[in-house]
């Protein structure tokens, strides 16, 4: 039972990170129909920011600095991607453009940091472990779970309860109508694109002590985020949260029980959801029609 608990906690930590990554992907897709294939590369930028700043376990202040630096880098990248994709009319061409950016950024990172696997130490202050139900568990992962909870609540309040959030949700549902009401949807799009990319980059730093940084990680993260978005429903915040929690659990418990087939389980979960509910578990209003 205690080993299950550890797996479930690992799954929660993974789910927290996946939520932070998938949120931007989902909202950008819901708003602009842009599949941002560079999202994994943005995550990897964050991971390498952590490598550059806190690789050998600096203090908590340096770690916070790394988070802020990654957020800034992610926001800049996201803003640039938004500007580039809005200059192109066709959705496929937009996806291809982000694919080109993804290849370029990933390759630039491997030029700068080499091809070896980098591991990142958790900040010294939270590097220890505590006893949870008789099993030792790293404090850092508990903090990641806490971050996920705070993020979920903050995003819920922002998107579902605030005025800005209602503009965002309305833009997902019917962009021309919001535009006709006199709201600059272009600014909303760039803002959400930038904020989503910043969150992905922050997740890259936070995931550093768990997943490390290496070439190819961007693709794995992009795949997981895509599966989360597909399972949860496109353009939906609650869907992204539910999808992230499901995939986090499937991955962690699957890795503990049947390590050989863990990756297959994720695909099976996605296939099952698509079979029963093709629009995802909690699709955003107005997007179900398009799927």
């Amino acid at each position, binding site marked *: 039972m205690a080993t299950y608990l550890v797996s479930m906690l690992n799954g929660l930590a993974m789910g927290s990170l996946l939520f932070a990554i998938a949120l931007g992907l989902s909202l950008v897709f819901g708003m602009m129909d842009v599949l941002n294939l560079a999202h994994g590369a943005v995550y990897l930028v964050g991971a390498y920011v952590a490598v550059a700043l806190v690789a050998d376990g600096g203090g908590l202040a340096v770690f916070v600095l790394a988070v802020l630096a990654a957020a800034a880098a992610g926001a800049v990248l996201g803003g640039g991607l938004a500007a580039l994709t809005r200059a192109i009319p066709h959705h*496929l061409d937009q996806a291809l453009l982000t694919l080109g*950016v993804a290849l370029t950024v990933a390759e630039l990172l491997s030029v700068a940091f080499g091809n070896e696997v980098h591991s990142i130490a958790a900040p010294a202050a939270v590097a220890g472990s505590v006893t949870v139900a008789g099993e030792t568990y790293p404090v850092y992962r508990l903090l990641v779970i806490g971050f996920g909870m705070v993020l979920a609540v903050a995003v819920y309040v922002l998107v579902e309860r605030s005025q800005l959030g209602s503009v965002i949700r309305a833009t997902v549902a019917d962009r021309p109508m919001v535009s006709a009401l006199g709201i600059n949807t272009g600014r909303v799009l760039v803002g959400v694109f930038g904020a989503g990319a910043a969150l992905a980059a922050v997740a890259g730093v936070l995931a550093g002590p768990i997943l490390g940084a290496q070439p190819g990680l961007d693709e794995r993260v992009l795949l997981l985020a895509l599966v989360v978005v597909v399972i949860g429903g496109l353009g939906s915040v609650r869907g992204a949260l539910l999808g992230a929690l499901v995939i986090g659990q499937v991955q962690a418990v699957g890795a503990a029980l049947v390590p050989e087939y863990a*990756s297959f389980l994720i695909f099976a979960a996605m296939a099952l959801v698509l079979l029963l509910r093709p629009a995802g578990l909690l699709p955003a209003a107005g997007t179900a029609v398009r799927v």
Partner: protein
Amino acid sequence: MTAGQARSGTERHEAPGPASDTAPGGGDGGRRDLADRPVSHAPLLVAAGAAALLVAAPLVLGPYPVTTATRILAFAVLVLSVDLLTGVTGLPTLGQAAYFGVGAYTAALVGIHVTADAAAQVIAACVAGLIAAAVTGWIAVRARGIVFFMLTLAIGESVHQVADTWSALGASNGLSGMPPIRLFGSPPLLAAGFVYWWVLAVAIAVFAAVTLVARSPYGRTLRGIRDNEPRMRALGYRTAAARYGVFCLAGAVAGVGGALWAAQARFVSPGDLGFEVAALALLSVVIGGAGSLWGPCLGAALVLIVRDNLSASLGGHGPLLLGLVFIAVVFLMPRGVAGLVGARRHPRTRTEIPS
């Protein structure tokens, strides 16, 4: 790779060459293809010339360039399958590398455990690609446009992960120890030139088959789906079945490409079906011009040469150049090389990919 047109052009007015591929335009494309166009011999001559050059290549080139050309041909078959979905049917895909990999692993397993006969390997890989596409495709073809694109990416990456972790396939170490191929009871084909000729023959046959499909009534149905699916449905076509069919067909073609790849490399690793391969195949289609069949083959050659041969002189960072090319092509020539040729011949028609 334009050689296929020489073989497939049994009826002269049915084989007008590349231009018809790039000019499907709305509703009148079919009529123009069949009757309204004056018959031209030039494309046939170009195709025959290209075929002759391809066949003669091993006689003048050294073993290394011949090996490179073999890899390009195998990759071009994968690119054809991507083009069949992306260009002809308007279903952009990043998942074909998965079926390419299924074909490559099947061919390698058949080679190691059953027979070194290359024809048997190609047939087994073709069937395996078909089955894999049939099993996974029904999830994907329910969606359209960008959602389809996303699902194929998820399928492709999932298959990649399976190959990367399944110990029966050598997991991340890959599958080595495949014996050299034999042909119809011949001794093992060790010389690069013989392997090249076998791969060339299969690739030309696949090109001819895909060309025939693209020009058949079924191919016209697919183009109709690309241009206006609701109208095709209203006309009574079963568009869902047609899309599922072309997905399975593309899986089989990609499987053949994988077998050819394995026949040359005699080693398969998870990297052969990864995201990068899928992205490069799509890049080849985009560079060459989606919907044309000869353009993407040229694109395949360009992409593979940049990745494998120019990469060394760029400090091993060929993908950086490819990423920049990708961005530049999307901005500057969204209809690819074939689009440039098509635009010169038919200034008013444009191939659009709906999404």
